[in-house]
């Protein structure tokens, strides 16, 4: 089994134009992944499948990740004139890092078998933002097994896969507009009756009760 870095080298030597980078996983598992550029994703995917050494012919899993906008506080040392004396002062600068959506694919090799080639090769693709530029190329033409899973990502995260043969919602109905697995999804308030409310549900049930009491008064 090649490590993520070795696979990166192989891709770069075969496809010089492709932009690929290794996303390190700092946890003990060290399951590093390859972040591929949407523009060259299809070419990279075909290479990974067709390459005789890698032969990643099976995509077992595709899923989405939502990375919302996050505020980053950075400490910067700035030279400042304080009371006539020039000093180096530490200042915190806050800026918002724009969020994005991510599609993650887990690849295995059936040809090489689980003994020779254990563990998944993880591919990632990122959209530009979370609102309007959410298009990614579909990898269904390369791995047929991800057809339903890309539909699920489309349904729950809102990533639009171009080149998908049948991109429809799969869990929610067609008229539904939200994407339930996004971090900012607010689900409908239907906890008005709770025999044994607790935790989050207790909070919501009490809000409901207060609202109902207001209406009756």
């Amino acid at each position, binding site marked *: 089994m090649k490590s993520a870095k070795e696979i990166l080298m192989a891709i770069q030597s075969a496809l010089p134009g492709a932009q690929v980078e290794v996303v390190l996983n700092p946890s003990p598992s060290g399951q590093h992944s390859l972040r591929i550029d949407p523009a060259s994703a299809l070419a990279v995917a075909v290479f990974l499948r067709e390459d005789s050494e890698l032969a990643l012919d099976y995509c077992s899993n595709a899923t989405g990740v939502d990375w919302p906008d996050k505020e980053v506080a950075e400490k910067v040392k700035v030279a400042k004139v304080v009371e006539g004396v020039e000093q180096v002062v530490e200042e915190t600068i806050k800026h918002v890092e724009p969020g994005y959506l991510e599609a993650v694919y887990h690849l295995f090799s059936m040809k090489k078998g689980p003994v020779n080639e254990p563990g998944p090769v993880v591919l990632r693709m990122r959209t530009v933002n979370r609102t309007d530029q959410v298009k990614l190329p579909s990898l269904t033409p390369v791995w047929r097994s991800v057809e339903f899973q890309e539909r699920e990502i489309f349904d729950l995260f809102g990533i639009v896969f171009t080149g998908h043969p049948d991109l429809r919602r799969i*869990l*929610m*109905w*067609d*008229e*539904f*507009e*939200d994407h*339930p697995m996004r971090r900012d*999804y607010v*689900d*409908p308030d*239907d*906890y*008005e*009756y709770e025999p044994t409310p607790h935790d*989050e*549900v207790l909070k919501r049930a009490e809000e409901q*009760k207060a609202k*109902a*009491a207001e*209406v*009756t*008064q």
Partner: protein
Amino acid sequence: MGSGIGAAMAVKPDLKIELGKQGVFVTTISDLYNWGRKNSVWPMQFGLACCAIEMIATTMARYDLARFGAEVFRPSPRQADLMIISGTVTKKMAPQVVRLYNQMAEPKYVIAMGACAISGGPFKQGYNVLKGIDRYIPVDVHIPGCPPRPEALIHAFMTLQAKIDEQPLTGSERPRHLDAEAQGEFPIPVQGAHDLEPPVNRLVWPLPAPAVIGTDAENCG
């Protein structure tokens, strides 16, 4: 036994036995009618999730629901009068469940089988599961459990039969099919942009009654 005219007209059991010893069979129309109704409840072939497997097991040789007159599961709502909602009702499926219920002929009954069907169960806090089918259609018997054993379904079936047997044929307690004013068709929810519309049918799901909530809040201080 029930209330009103039906109960008043019922034959006393002791008298019935005494007359039976003399070779006289005495009964009432209501007894006969309910006896026929309760012993010919035909369920619809309709399952949604794991509970459906238990429901199927209930009809198989070991548990044999056929002993109760619930013989073959009917493949069409037109031939069935019992809907066993066995499994998770998702919000995508809910309109179809209500539509099938509407298509059944009166008199019709509903058993909500399992935690999902009665409340959403382990998926209650999910985004796509209905928090109990009794929000849209009237349920006669609820079975808790995840999934309930076949014995529980048989018990629910016997409970339903007892309920049918006790129903008086006249008066305010009479079954819906004998009440010309009663609502027989239930509104099918529309799949909206954020949730089912309406989220509940207040006619069958009046909980929580606002007045009760007010007093609850006062009691809790």
